[in-house]
């Protein structure tokens, strides 16, 4: 327990004193939130209804996708995991503790967003318990996705490639900037494949009591399944050292992480 707390405290402090981590955990999401609150709510007053969940999802996605994977790759390539291994630091701790620390930072930013949202005359959740649980689940899911990217990426460049495959389409199609209901019909199934869409639909349906295109309870199930699957795959595919050729599985197995979202698309069409 002492080791766990010591490790978590170190990772949490790193998230504050490392300039890159500080940028991805706090400055970027809060800066974007301030900009959206000031500008977007003036251009589109309807955005006030979704400002809080959209910016919470953005904060969670930014810290976990843009902030978490790179240090995992850099540490592996710098031989840090070798030092950890010979000193008895388990793989589970190496992966899960930075993710937990990133999730804590994302939750702090989420709390700041919720507390300051009245400044922008934003709608607040009707069901706070649902809002809190979906926030925790979304943070855990993006944390697991970030872990998996950190495990399969071979360099900083491949981290950028993998994260942008999720980040950019999520910004456009994930229901944060535009409701997926107003997307062309052909794009709606594509949108459902992104975790941001699942999180936004869960927030709007369960925490705000709005009508949603996707079944919000199913969205919670998809996020939960994705969280468990990505975490399991990250642990399974983890390697201590890129110079060591022995791997338990091919990195392409990470594509299995898409299964819950593909299932969600198929179910959405059937229902």
């Amino acid at each position, binding site marked *: 327990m*002492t*080791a766990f707390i*010591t*490790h978590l405290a*170190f990772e949490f*402090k*790193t998230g504050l*004193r*490392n300039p890159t981590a500080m940028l991805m955990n706090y400055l970027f999401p809060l800066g974007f939130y301030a900009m959206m609150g000031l500008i977007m709510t003036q251009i589109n007053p309807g955005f006030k209804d979704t400002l809080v969940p959209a910016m919470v999802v953005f904060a969670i996605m930014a810290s976990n996708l843009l902030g978490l994977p790179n240090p995992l790759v850099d*540490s592996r390539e*710098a*031989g*840090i995991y*070798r*030092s950890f*291994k*010979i*000193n*008895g*630091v388990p793989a589970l701790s190496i992966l899960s503790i930075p993710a937990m620390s990133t999730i804590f930072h994302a939750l702090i930013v989420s709390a700041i967003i919720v507390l300051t949202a009245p400044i922008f005359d934003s709608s607040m959740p009707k069901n706070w318990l649902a809002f809190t649980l979906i926030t925790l689940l979304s943070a855990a899911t993006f944390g697991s996705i970030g872990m998996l990217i950190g495990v399969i990426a071979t360099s900083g460049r491949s981290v950028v490639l993998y994260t942008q495959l999720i980040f950019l389409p999520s910004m456009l199609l994930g229901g944060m900037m535009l409701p997926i209901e107003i997307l062309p019909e052909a794009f709606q199934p594509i949108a459902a494949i992104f975790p941001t869409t699942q999180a936004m639909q869960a927030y709007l349906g369960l925490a705000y009591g709005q009508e949603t295109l996707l079944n919000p309870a199913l969205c919670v199930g998809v996020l939960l399944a994705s969280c468990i699957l990505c975490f399991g795959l990250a642990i399974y595919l983890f390697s*201590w*050292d890129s110079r*060591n*050729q*022995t791997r338990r599985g091919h990195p392409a197995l990470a594509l299995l992480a898409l299964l819950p979202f593909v299932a969600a698309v198929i179910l959405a069409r059937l229902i």
Partner: protein
Amino acid sequence: MDENVLTVTDFRKAYGDFVAVSGVSFTVSRGEIFGLLGPNGAGKTTTLECLEGIRNGDGGQLNILGVDPSREPHKLNKLIGVQLQTSGLPADMTVDEAMKFFSAYHGVAPRYDLLDRLGLQEKRRTKYSQLSTGQQRRLALSLAVAHDPPVIILDEPTAGLDVATRTELHTLMQELRAQGRTIILATHDMAEAEKLADRVSILLRGKIVATGSPIELTATGSGFTKVSVRTEQSLLERNGASFPAVAKKSVLDDYTIYFSADPGPTVSAILDYLHTEGDKLIDLRVERPTLEERFLEITTPGDAQ
């Protein structure tokens, strides 16, 4: 020093088609400093990394205090302390945090006194990325021994260190040995191996080509003992005197230097000669071949081995 704490038997490791280590066997006893020597690429680090559980071998057996590193790597961290040749710590981790972090995982109290002893007292709040190479190595050594492991594996521990720090590390290693710790020392520094190691093995192209104490190894070589003599009248040189077992002779400054295959008879004959000729001895030095010379003899292509 009877009880074997580490046994390597017919060990083999290949990377694809390249065989890094083959047929390597050695044992190390409790309280022994065992040197693993060899040129770059000889297989030292591969052997050590397999002992540390970082890599798995392809054949043979490894055993550290009853634990097979490839099968039970989780049991190793209490038994061994390791200073890797290439290792890293998180860039933002301070020296104190590193000690606290790894001590927590080993379940022991942090040994901040080791940091002070190895000259890191002024750097305890400094981040790892801001330490010099020498300071990083000293920190790595502190971390390797902080949990008081019975076996300590050091891969090039003093490379890049200044003389004072190197001497302090040597003293620490000797103290650890005196406490019954076993040390495996991979080094390029022959003087270090000769000074510290009880026994050494020389690895060449993945195979052990010589094992023994530094004295045994130097004695079995074809190298000559150097007998340097300085006298008042320099009669040895002026008279062109010759002595038994001397293979060659040279002159440097005021010294006449004899390279002898058997220094006992050579020295006796020189002293007799000087006594007979009435020349006064000012200085006489006998230097056996160094481990470095023996190492070069073994590892240089085209030489004896």
